[in-house]
């Protein structure tokens, strides 16, 4: 790690401009400082965005909740608004990281965290010191995880180039809440659905052939864009807030996180469920899974198949089987499909669902 200059951004536009010019933005610093220590990024300039007022606060207007990008995971977890109207998000924040980290970790930085793939996270000051190939570290070098021992590998959307997963918990809840992401960038502001924010590796490969994709890569065209593009955040764009509407399903929502260790560990698989069930019948279910793809994985097919139906054991089993019929676990990871299905089952009941 080398010395860098540090400055506090006075306003969004200067932060955005600095980022375009290659400065790294820092919010809580819990991810980016690790990247700098590990050799994943190296920066001459680091711009602190924690004083930007547009990015703070959690509030509710009418049926809409707005979460500023600087809200910490502990603030979100403890917010009465969120606890009441979107418990899934409160729980996802509480189950992330440790208490100390949650005091610093912002939800803006959270959705931008990178994979926990241990090949990617190898300590290496420079590319030539990398002990093994990783396309995310050294484009074109290869992917060690495919034939390696990375338990958090993707079930969906991976390519030969990369099988990494997005480990965020809050992002999974935001996807189940159908949140919008408000962005401000060099060319103004825009909003996109969080379901479209992250991309799988195969989506990234398609994107790379488009103009949008080339802009995402900042003009460079490395050999394996599939491994490098992880979301649709343009260079210099800043996440300002997330917004979502409150409904019966969001009020009856829950997050289940499965992992070897009871706390302070990333998920093997997690599930966020928003469930509107009345008299045994599902009126609406929104289901998203975490840590099984490079983006929170919505089970849209399963949601449609459950809608208007009773939640019985046989139907659930067949719906889940269909939802995972095209899952592609790495060799020796077939069990992960069952873990993910187990997470959905337990989240459905935690959200108040009764399975007949």
């Amino acid at each position, binding site marked *: 790690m080398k*010395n860098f200059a540090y400055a506090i951004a006075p306003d969004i536009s200067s932060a955005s401009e600095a980022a375009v010019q290659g400065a790294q933005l820092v919010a809580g610093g819990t991810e980016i400082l690790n990247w700098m220590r590990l050799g994943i990024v190296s920066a001459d300039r680091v711009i602190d965005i924690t004083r930007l007022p547009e990015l703070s606060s959690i509030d509710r207007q009418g049926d809409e909740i707005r979460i500023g990008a600087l809200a910490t995971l502990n603030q979100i977890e403890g917010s009465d608004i969120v606890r009441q109207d979107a418990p899934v998000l409160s729980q996802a924040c509480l189950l992330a990281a440790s208490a100390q980290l949650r005091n610093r970790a912002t939800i803006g930085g959270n959705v931008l965290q990178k994979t926990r793939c241990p090949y990617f996270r190898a300590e290496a000051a420079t590319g030539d*010191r990398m*002990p093994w190939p990783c396309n995310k570290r050294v484009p074109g070098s290869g992917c060690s995880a495919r034939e390696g021992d990375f338990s958090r590998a993707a079930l969906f959307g991976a390519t030969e180039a990369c099988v990494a997963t997005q480990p965020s918990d809050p992002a999974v809840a935001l996807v189940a809440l159908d949140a919008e992401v408000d962005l401000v960038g060099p060319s103004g502001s825009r909003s996109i659905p969080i379901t479209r924010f992250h991309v799988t590796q195969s989506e990234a490969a398609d994107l790379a052939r488009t103009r949008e994709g080339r802009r995402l890569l900042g003009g460079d065209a490395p050999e394996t864009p599939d491994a490098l593009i992880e979301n649709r955040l343009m260079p210099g764009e800043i996440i300002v807030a997330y917004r979502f509407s409150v409904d019966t399903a969001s009020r009856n929502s829950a997050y289940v996180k499965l992992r070897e260790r009871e706390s302070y*560990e990333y998920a093997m698989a997690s599930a966020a469920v928003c469930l509107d069930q009345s008299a045994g019948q599902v009126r609406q279910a929104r289901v998203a899974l975490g840590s099984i793809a490079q983006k929170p994985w919505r089970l849209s097919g399963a949601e449609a198949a459950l809608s208007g139906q009773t939640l019985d054991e046989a139907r659930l089993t067949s719906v889940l089987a269909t939802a995972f019929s095209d899952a592609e676990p790495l060799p020796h990871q077939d069990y992960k499909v*069952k873990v993910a299905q187990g997470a959905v089952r337990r989240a459905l009941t935690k959200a108040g669902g009764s399975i007949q």
Partner: protein
Amino acid sequence: MTDMHKIETALTGIIVADDGAPLALPENGIGSPQRRMDGPDKVTGQATYAGEDMPNGTLHAVLVTSPVAKGRIAAVDTGQARAAPGVVRVLTPADMPTLGSPSVPPTAQSKLPMSSLDIDYEGQPIAIVLAETLEQAEAGAGLVRIGIERAKPAVFDTAEVEVPPTEGNGYVLGELDPAHGDVDAGFANAAHRIEATYTTPTRHHNMMEPSATLAEWRGGDLHLNDATQWSWGLQLSLAGIFDMEPSRIHIRCPYTGGGFGAKGYVWPHQILAPIAARIVGRPVKLNLTRTGCYTGCGYQSGTQSRLRLASDAQGHLTAVEHHTENVTSVSDDYIEFANMGTRGMYAMPAYRMTTRVRRANVGTPTAMRAPHEGPGMFALESAMDELAYEIGMDPLELRLANYTDSDPHSGKPFSSNKLREAYAEGARRIGWSDRVHEPRSRRDGDKLLGLGMAGAIMTTFRNASQARVAMTPDGRFTVEVGSQEIGTGTRTIFAQVVAERLGIPSERVTVVLGSTDLPPASATLGSASTISIGSAVATATDNLKTRLDDMAGRETRPDEWPDLLARLGVDRVQAEGAFTLPGDVSFDAHGGQTDYSMHTWGAVFVEMEVDEITGIARMRRAVAAYSAGRILNPVTARSQMIGGIIFGYGRAMLEASPMDPRYGRYLSKNLSGVQLPVNADIPRNIDVCFIEEHDPHASAIGVRGIGELGEVGVAAAITNAIYNATGKRVRDLPVHFEHLIA
């Protein structure tokens, strides 16, 4: 004094240090539940550790290590690094002086660091960058360019099985291949047999304080501030390597922030820091990073144990086989004696054991709490559970049927053994009589519940030790001993020993540790400090009393001593004491040349819950009862045992350091990729008790060692409970989703 831990000695001779029980223990001296004397210093940051010191002119050293596991260094380009701001010097193998050959142990590996261009393991030091600040040294290290001709590494799974050499191998703790009786007949005539292979993974110590050393030469003497568990081992090792008088090497370790074995032997950084300090003529500080600890100070070797057990219809063992293999390095033959516990645990008319290694491109493994018996008893106690189910017999009954009161291997009687009482008390506390033997019999909502148990055994290690006890006219006493405090509470214990011998409050005793300028003492290894040094302190105290009686010309009481000293105008009276071993050896195991076999014992009981829909298992309750000799302080003893049980939970459920066989590198060299237990994994009240005991043979003060025993048996108790819950047998640790998910 005991507001948090209430202590009870029941009439039945059970010592419990737990919340809520009535208090009936001595106020003072041995057996009194005293808090750590150094606790307040530690939690307020007053206690200092080796890595904190910073004499004027200190340079920071950062190691550049090999990113590949096997190969040859073709070139080291230090040009850019040397030009970097603050970098004072970059040392490469070409700068290394000629060194003497190291004795192994205390040196961990016979291959000296930076002594050759061959790379034998990933993480092997290649260069040292010395700079004015740590940040500059780190930045400089990133600029050193290394050219390496890579070769394909050997790993455990692909390596050949070898018989480790016993000649000149300091890692041989016992016979490799003990055998006795007619094993084949024992199997042929048995009513029941089981055969299975059990594996435990390679894992790291992950102690709280990473290894750290600060080296400074003053007038030809070497002064080292070091985070060590064995100052004297470090002195001896460096004396050999640098061809110096040991007395010219001064080791200081004010406090050591845990070690679990990683700081027992001498590792490359402790050899390189003095060399660098010598070359640059300034103090050099070399602290390993957390990542550096994964390749810089050992690990517990993965083990594979093949077990065969045979019994008659009543469950009496008729033959036992235990064959083990562990990984070791290119340069050395570290042996993880996973069959060590099997040699002493049960009555066995016939047995056959083998101990083998597989040589791979890895650093040398080392002892880790609990070496040998820790991984090995997972295998034996799992196999005993399998045999119990094969017979259709209660697993505890099976253990009792095979109880032995003499060592099945040496034939010697045990110095003391209350294992049967431990079984009984543990079983009572967990409610074993309510257990349903048939798997999958108990449920709580979504979860299957199961009870499991395992026996525990640990070798008693003893080290020759000396101590000095002094008295001053103010009525205060000082214990001086060149030991190191790694968090176990020995400081408090030594004060209690003096207090007991003299009938004075232990507040009047100051304990000075942490320097080789004090009397030589045991390593803080192998649960040997209390037994060895405690005995030396007791003898020194008795000698002090004799000396004071002599000075008075009659038998005196300690409260007369301040006046006596004042009268005689003496401002300090001191006496030394030693704990020696038969045959005048510096170290022995299981009683060595004595007429007794020495071990500690335990019975561990666990309740597990398993959700088969998610594949998650958690521990609900843990109870353990121990036969470990006299308990000097129930509070610190209990701490050791619950720590050990949590360690065992880690072994069973979480910990592993997998290596990618293609690259010979640990997948993760960072705590964020290695799962250790956290509080949320552990039930609030681990119930620990000790059987009241006084071992007249093992030491002068009735004790044996306890620190490592707590880890033993826990993993098997857990997987046995999982079997009782689910009918699924886990033979490869750690337990994982794929073992349990429906």
